[in-house]
């Protein structure tokens, strides 16, 4: 069983042009913890997730994942991190199965495509080009992509967006599965009730700082 990643950061800051999206934030997350990230639009939730995903480099402060410098060691850390952002990372011309197959092959894992599609309820539509899919279906497929590998740090940016009631159950199920396998999970959300009942630690952001 994979253990989760530990996260430690001090004074994390990141600017975009004239704006500080994160303006000096400290984070400490233990392996296997479930963190709920809240805060109004533009408070820095997505930026924090992208920093944790090593998609961005911090302009100030430092960030360590498992004790390693996040940006410096990004090629080693990345295979163990899954970021579900607003962008799905899918190709519209390919079918659902082809999309997952492409991602699986690029990581060298045996394509366990059908099982993943069944898990997110898309196996009946697996042969259709996903340009015919609804936003919710694409969202499910995007989640399935991230579970082709077992992540040790899962970062979910408003995972329930565009999902129906069943989809939300699905997300909830995935999060519980991740937690029970020891993965560290950070979920940015506007709806606290999404994580009701789970042992979640809440972090609130405001203007790029801890609120």
């Amino acid at each position: 069983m994979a253990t989760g990643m530990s996260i430690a950061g001090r004074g994390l800051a990141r600017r975009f042009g004239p704006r500080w999206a994160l303006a000096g934030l400290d984070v400490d997350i233990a392996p296997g913890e479930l963190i709920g990230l809240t805060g109004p639009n533009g408070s820095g939730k997505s930026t924090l997730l992208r920093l944790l995903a090593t998609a961005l480099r911090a302009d100030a402060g430092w960030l360590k994942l498992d004790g390693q410098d996040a940006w410096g060691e990004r090629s080693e850390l990345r295979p163990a991190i899954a970021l579900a952002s607003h962008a799905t990372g899918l190709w519209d011309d390919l079918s659902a199965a082809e999309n997952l197959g492409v991602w699986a092959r690029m990581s060298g894992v045996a394509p366990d495509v059908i099982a993943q599609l069944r898990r997110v309820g898309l196996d009946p539509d697996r042969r259709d080009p996903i340009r015919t899919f609804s936003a919710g279906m694409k969202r499910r497929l995007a989640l399935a992509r991230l579970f082709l590998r077992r992540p040790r740090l899962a970062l979910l940016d408003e995972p329930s967006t565009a999902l129906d009631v069943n989809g939300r159950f699905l997300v909830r199920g995935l999060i519980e599965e991740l937690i029970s396998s020891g993965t560290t999970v950070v979920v940015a959300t506007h709806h606290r009730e999404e994580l009701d009942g789970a042992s979640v630690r809440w972090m609130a952001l405001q203007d790029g700082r801890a609120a």
Partner: protein
Amino acid sequence: MRPPSKAERAAYAIGLVLLIVGHGLALFWVPPERMMGEVGRILYVHVPAAWLSLVAYTISFGAAVGFLFTGRRSMDHTAVASAEAGVVLNALLLATGSLFARPTWGVWWTWDPRLTSSAVMWLTFVGVLLLRSVVHDPERRATWSAVSTVMAYVNIPITYFSVQMWRSIHQVQSNPGTMDSDMVFVLRFNAFAVLFLLLGWLGTGRRIAASIDARESAPPLESP
């Protein structure tokens, strides 16, 4: 914007004095060119512009490589300032080349290898500056323009070589050995004049680039 430094003012002053003296020498002291007559005097603008545009591009390339290794924004400011100076000098070289071609060969443009490669070089660096103008994030702008500057500069020799092979019919490159020593002296004198003006310009250009950067980047964080 920061006020100009003493060195910058001095470079402009020296450059201006040298330029006036140099052009006086070029217009009144040096005897007319044997083959081309009075028209040949345009070479005293053309050749220094050609030399110094290459110097400016070289500085830009060095600063771009420096930026890619260190990530220091001041390197980017130097790179853009010298690329701009290079483009202006390069334009001057093309314009004077064209003015020179008309009375000499009866055409406004000649596909001479050096002139043609300079035109290509000019377009390449204009492209770099245009790319800068469409990227809004200062960090990304600096990186992308460094990448495109490196590509543009590294391409210069192969461009020159291929164009020369394409047009291997033109006049042999004049070098100091085949020229009158007075002419060489004035050419070098004027080149120094332009060099000092270039240095002054680099100072100004760096200050402008720094102020644009400061305006478009968030101010340093105050401690919480």
